[in-house]
């Protein structure tokens, strides 16, 4: 049985050819190479032969264990207090050169918590920086996806009106998308500057000097939030345009019918606009999620993952390791992990938003 793709379709293949070749060479091939490299010790620069190392890279990245410690007790059995809190045995004595615990060698504390009582549970990771990168990336995605999609929808509804000069607003909202993300990041670094940045000056002026200057990017508690805000602002215009195209496919007759029936604005949105945007919403959610997982340029330009790893992200770590530290295998393993994460989330999103018959 000859299919449409093989019969008298030479022109079609000729036209698709260049794109297929480029995608094969620059997307598909590197993808399979990355999977292959992640099981070796491939270096960027090295005279040594590449060796197969199995799952070592993954074990190094994802190794996590917990350790519950009892507080130090004095001879009478009372808990030794230090600075008002119980003192625990030092982790360093367990994780470094300790022949009794070879399984803990090279691990570091990620965080610790107490489940009541005197004992304290420590979560140790083989690669704390990567763990923080995963957490930061998820925080970024969880905040950016709904907020950016919502803001973009709001803007799209605002500019989807027949008003004089509406194109000016469309252009203004879309402008940050056209500017290179590197340039935008450089500008926002100036805006966020801790001493004389625009944002600090603005806050100082409107509060009559009550708000002291904040070192937005130099403070671990504000750095990621600053990057989230700036990233939402930068790409919101792009998604606004997609929403807009979705809005314009909704038949005007439906709105006319609603007007005749005397529907309120909210009812129009709830029962006509929103159902009509269903497919657009699925697309936007998936696109934003995938883009947000790829967070890199802002970090590279603005913070380099700091301060104190508060802005490390998965892609930044992949590039930092692969090129900065010449460890292509480690970078590849990170990319594969990211691929698995994004793939599973996209599949879940597809499943959740499937057409229910």
């Amino acid at each position, binding site marked *: 049985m000859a299919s449409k793709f093989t019969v008298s379709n030479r022109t079609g293949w000729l036209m698709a050819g260049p794109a297929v070749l480029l995608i094969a060479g620059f997307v598909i091939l590197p993808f399979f190479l990355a999977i292959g490299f992640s099981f070796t010790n491939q270096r960027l620069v090295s005279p*040594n032969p590449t060796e197969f190392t199995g799952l070592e890279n993954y074990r190094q990245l994802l190794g996590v264990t917990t350790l519950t410690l009892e507080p130090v007790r004095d001879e009478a059995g009372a808990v030794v207090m230090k600075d008002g809190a119980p003192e625990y045995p030092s982790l360093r004595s367990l994780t470094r050169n300790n022949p009794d615990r070879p399984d803990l060698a090279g691990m570091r504390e990620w965080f610790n918590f107490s489940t009541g009582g005197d004992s304290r549970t420590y979560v140790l990771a083989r690669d704390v920086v990567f763990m923080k990168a995963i957490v930061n990336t998820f925080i970024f995605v969880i905040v950016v996806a709904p907020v950016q999609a919502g803001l973009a929808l709001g803007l799209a509804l605002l500019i989807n009106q027949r008003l004089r000069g509406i194109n000016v607003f469309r252009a203004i909202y879309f402008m940050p998308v056209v500017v290179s993300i590197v340039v935008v990041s450089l500008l926002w670094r100036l805006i966020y500057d801790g001493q004389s940045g625009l944002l600090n000056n603005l806050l100082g002026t409107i509060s009559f000097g009550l708000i002291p200057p904040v070192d937005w990017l130099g403070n671990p508690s504000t750095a990621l939030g600053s990057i989230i805000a700036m990233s939402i602002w930068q790409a919101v215009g792009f998604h606004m345009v997609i929403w807009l195209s979705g809005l314009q496919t909704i038949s005007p007759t439906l709105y006319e019918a609603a007007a005749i029936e005397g529907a309120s604005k909210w009812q129009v949105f709830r029962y006509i606009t929103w159902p009509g945007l269903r497919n657009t919403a699925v697309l936007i959610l998936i696109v934003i999620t995938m883009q947000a997982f790829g967070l890199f340029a802002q970090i590279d330009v603005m913070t380099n993952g700091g301060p104190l790893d508060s802005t490390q992200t998965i892609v930044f770590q992949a590039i930092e390791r692969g090129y900065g530290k010449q460890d292509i295998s480690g970078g590849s393993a990170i990319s594969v992990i990211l691929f698995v994460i994004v793939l599973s989330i996209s599949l879940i999103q597809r499943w959740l938003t499937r057409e229910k018959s």
Partner: protein
Amino acid sequence: MKVFKLAASAAILCWASAAQAQTTLSMWYHGAGNEVELKLINEVITDFNASQSDWKVELQSFPQAAYNDSVVAGALAGNLPDILDVDGPNMPNWAWAGYMQPLVIDESKIANFLPGTKGVWDGKLYSIGLWDAAVALVTRQSTLDELGLRKPTVDAPWTKDEFMAALDAAKAAGKWEYPLDLGMAWTGEWYPYAFSPFLQSFGGDIVDRSTYKTAEGALNGDAALAFGEWWQGLFKNGYAQATQDPADRDGGFAAGKYAFSWNGNWAALGALAAFPDTVFLPAPDLGAGPKIGAASWQFGVSATSKNPQGAAAFIEFALQDKYLAAFSNGIGLIPATPSASEMVDNYKAGGPLSVFVEYSAKTALVRPVTPGYVVQAKVFEKALADIANGTDVAATLDAAADEINADIEKNGGYGH
């Protein structure tokens, strides 16, 4: 028609014979975008091409930020030029990876070169620099007088206590935003270049230089822990700022925001222009002697070059004092030889920057000479930034030592 053909073939023959007589040597340089530097290097090339008839050097310039990536990409594609320039601490990595071959030049020609300008790996010379760079503690004579501080010399530098007393005095005076400007805004190679000498002055190091096989004990031993606590204290106690506006790094000292600035000779003329009484003090002795970094950009021959003797001839030609002096006059770096220094107003005996030559000769220590330095520099930079931001010193240095050791192991010991 026939005449035209004849003329054409004659022209081709002519061109072919000229090409045969002169072999073309390609050369890559990192200075694209810097007009002065390019003019100087072109002058050397023009003089060399005119001075003999065997070789003809052709230059290709890259912006500094993209240079190292271009070399790595060129090497992977088997497409390196004959002559390369390389940042001193990177050289062992490229030599080990097989990008470079040993440089064969007349030993006597480089006998009086500053130690930091010679790129030696595995007992062989691979690269040589026309200049070196040095760092000093920049301040004003009036500041020293006002705070009642002794002016240190390279033979009698400030001790750690004297240095901290100076910072205390500056802090107490309340005239400056911060007593000390370390240059925290210059992320990247500045951290290992400028700050690892502090660690070495405490008696620690980035990696154990006796074997280059481990960082254990060097980066997290007692000396290193003492360094880490001291380093963290600089920020915790308000002597310096952990995050700095790049504009403050460039203009803060001249604007009077800092009493002392830890900065390189390239910024020295700017400081002198702002305050004529600017003085350049040697590094403090934090226990194991005063130390500053060394090694700047150097020239070498690529491993794939078919004409290494031609490339070496060019490099030898470029080592003349007049070119060393020209580069120093043009871009402000320290000439590699004493005789060239005498030809430069800034660096000749009694010149405003002549102390830098002395610091370079007496206190300079090259960064660890190992192919793993490229990774170690990154690990060190992150550790110092984290400690400055207040993490636990011992845990951070332990983690850094572990990461360096894992990398050394992954690379089969880097050929040491």
